[in-house]
């Protein structure tokens, strides 16, 4: 049955008003609830919550005709509130077809108000008010590609889950994702709720020590690839100077098999790549325009590191190798950090063997 109103027709909600009643809710909302850890029942902060309303129109044949979305991030109490949309689509056959809530928090399995992940079962425990979202912790045997296919959601969710694209892509390529590799006993480097932190690998002082550069650097990350639990970068941008004065480090911590593949990929993609035996288990030199490149593989640790240095900064090829050796000397300090924040002190360093890595967060 449809309920006519001044705006669109509003369909009956497939969810209850509250968890303790069978009274149907209202598709228009408002909605409220709390996000908790399924195991500890503790509230989860910084979860991305996105509610969306879908409108449709048509007689006989019907199709999408607009939407509204509201997103927020939970605070320490894990609670969310989503107000009713105040501007609705209008038109002859316009109707509000569905409301969907999506919750995403890195390190957990995502939640949808309509279906459950993994079992593909219809969810029946969503309610308009006092909804309790119990997030299960991410398990190493799960696949990111399936998770992304399940997730859906708008811009806020896509942004929060963007880091999963890289491990998911590796899964499509038939390479073991780091977390699946962990379950299989391969060398791994990170837990899903962590992001890789490349900051210990190279410092401004070390760059100056090698190249003799006296100017200032702005230190940040490269924008060409999203930081994730398996990738991070360090960009030393020479202030007021052209790109030929910049230095950059990229690091992939992806497990033994995937690291081999990544190194092969770099060998195929980097301009003028030539294999060398200078550092690590395998290495290569490359050159594109004013930038010198050196990439090397640390097989046992499952790491691939790529160093780039502009020819005005690294005025001789030996400088690039010296920088690479400094980076290699810091590999043991490579860390993960929660949710893209800087690596906190006290976190166990990454780059451990499976045995050494056991018990890490």
């Amino acid at each position, binding site marked *: 049955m*449809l309920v*006519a109103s001044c705006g669109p*027709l509003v369909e009956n909600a*497939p969810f209850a008003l509250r968890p303790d009643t069978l009274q149907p809710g209202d598709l228009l909302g408002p909605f409220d609830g709390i996000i908790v850890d399924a195991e500890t029942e503790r509230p989860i902060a910084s979860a991305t919550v*996105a509610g*969306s309303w*879908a*409108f*449709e*129109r*048509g*007689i*006989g*044949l*019907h*199709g*999408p*005709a*607009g*939407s509204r*979305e509201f997103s927020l991030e939970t605070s320490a109490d894990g609670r969310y509130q989503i107000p009713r949309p105040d501007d609705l689509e209008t*038109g*002859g*056959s316009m*109707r509000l*077809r*569905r409301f*969907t809530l*999506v919750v995403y928090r890195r390190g957990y399995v995502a939640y*949808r108000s*309509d*279906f459950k992940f993994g079992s*593909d*079962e*219809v969810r029946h425990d969503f309610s308009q008010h006092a909804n309790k979202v119990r997030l299960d912790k991410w398990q190493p045997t799960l696949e990111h*590609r399936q998770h*992304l*296919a*399940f*997730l*859906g*959601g*708008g*811009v806020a*969710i*896509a942004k929060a889950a963007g880091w999963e*694209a*890289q491990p*998911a*892509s590796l899964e*499509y*390529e038939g390479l073991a994702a780091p977390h699946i590799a962990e379950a299989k006993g391969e060398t791994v480097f990170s837990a899903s709720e962590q992001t890789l932190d490349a900051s210990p690998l190279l410092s401004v002082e070390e760059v100056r020590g090698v190249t003799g550069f006296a100017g200032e650097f702005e230190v940040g990350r490269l924008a060409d690839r999203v930081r994730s639990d398996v990738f991070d970068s360090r960009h030393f941008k020479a202030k007021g100077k052209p790109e030929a004065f910049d230095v950059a480090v990229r690091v992939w911590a992806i497990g033994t098999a995937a690291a081999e593949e990544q190194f092969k990929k770099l060998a*195929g*993609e*980097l*301009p*003028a*790549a030539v294999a060398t035996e200078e550092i690590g288990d395998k290495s290569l030199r490359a050159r*594109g*325009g004013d930038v010198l490149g050196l990439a090397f593989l640390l097989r046992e640790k499952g790491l691939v590191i790529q160093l780039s240095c502009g020819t005005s900064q690294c005025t001789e090829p030996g400088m690039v190798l010296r920088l690479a050796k400094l980076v290699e000397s810091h590999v043991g300090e490579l860390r993960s950090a929660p949710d893209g924040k800087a690596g906190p002190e006290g976190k166990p360093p990454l780059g451990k063997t499976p045995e050494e890595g056991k018990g890490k967060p």
Partner: protein
Amino acid sequence: MRLRQALAPVVLAGIAVLTPRFALAWDPATTHAGLTARALAASKFHATLAHEIGRALGSLEPLRLDLGALEPDTARNLKSRLDALDPAGGYRPSADRIATASAWVRAGAVLAKTPPERGRHHFFEPRTRTGLDDGPGLSGTVHAARLTFDDGATVRDGATGLAFDLEGMPALDWLRSPRNDLGLTAFFDNWVLAVSAAQANQRETALVRAMLALGGALAILEDAGQPAFVRNDFRGEFLAQDSGSVLERFVSDRYGAVSLPPSPAPVARPDLDSYFAAADGNGLAQDTQRRFFSPGTLPEDIRFLPGQTPSEVAGMANRSLQFPEPTVAALDLRQSGRTRYVVRDGIRVLAYRCNGDRVHFFLDQAVDEDVARRWLPEVEGYAAGLIDHLLRARLQIAVEENKARVALTGTATPFGPAVTVHVFWEDDAGVRTELPAQATQSDAPLSFDLPKGARKIAAYVRGQDGAGAYAAASEARVP
């Protein structure tokens, strides 16, 4: 907009008597998006993007649609349709028009029926290869009038004869029609532009449009897995009552966009048409028509005489059928008032109930459940097969010293007439320029001299092989 405002009172009055019903097409926002997602995952889509088109993240590569690179009318039309999409499905692009390659394809499958009247061209009767045709009568005119009251935009269509009057092009024609911005013409044109356009934003926008068109093509095939669309049953499905379609609702609510049953292996067919209909009878439209009833093509209710055998009664029911298959075998007439089922290949395809000396035939949720469970994976397999079919031809590029060697592989036999291989080089600024093209009539590599400073090499070819039209596009870095 002015028209819409002026009609508002009429529209409100119309709702009271013309409550819209929900269609028995696959629901675009959920089912088409979900079927397409499953098909993409089962096909070589990811590998093609990652290894042929230089998009490292493959199906998860973020792509930006630059509306400024399109004709103003095209951009405006596309923007308004994209803005209509539901974010919950995961395929709506961001405000700056960025989405993953996979999301763009799924968006295309939804846009294929946005606005919904585009679905008129998704009908295909495989025996006659005709589209939606409601035959003589006033229904079409009445329906067009109803749509006029529904949306101001269709007033213009009514005046120009373009309103949806219950007729449409055959799905295969629509798939190939240049008028279809989400059809094969758009796919092939943009697939080659995605590597050959001069500027990077033009190439990325062309790739997005190719993804959208691929989704649109898949949506047409997916509807060939919907009984009403292959049994010319718009009237029975869409106009018989205003209470809503049980099957469409069931599939949409049970599976949504994210929870459809997984696809089996892609279905390989010899050519494009044969995905719909072919002499071997294994086209999706043929198989669907042969296996399932739709509400408007059920056996008529019958009255039987005492002493008539169940198979005689079944024969009477079969004589009322519009299509040769499926048919009704012996009926169980023993208990009055009890719902029983006609089962075919383990699937309940028809419900019936005896009331005294009458047999009533109908479709219920048990039938819908079986149809969905059995047939959705089949549809996904055909859709995955179509993706692989369209991406079958490959251009392998190998760069050695100052030469690029380009070989065309993956085409079906016979190779077909000679084709022209177009090769482009990219400079440091990302601008691509064409090198002198070469013709070939085999898969032997062609050699091209590279200009100094070439950063990347791209190539495309369009042709016709034993499986029909194809386009291959590829690019590679210069070491």
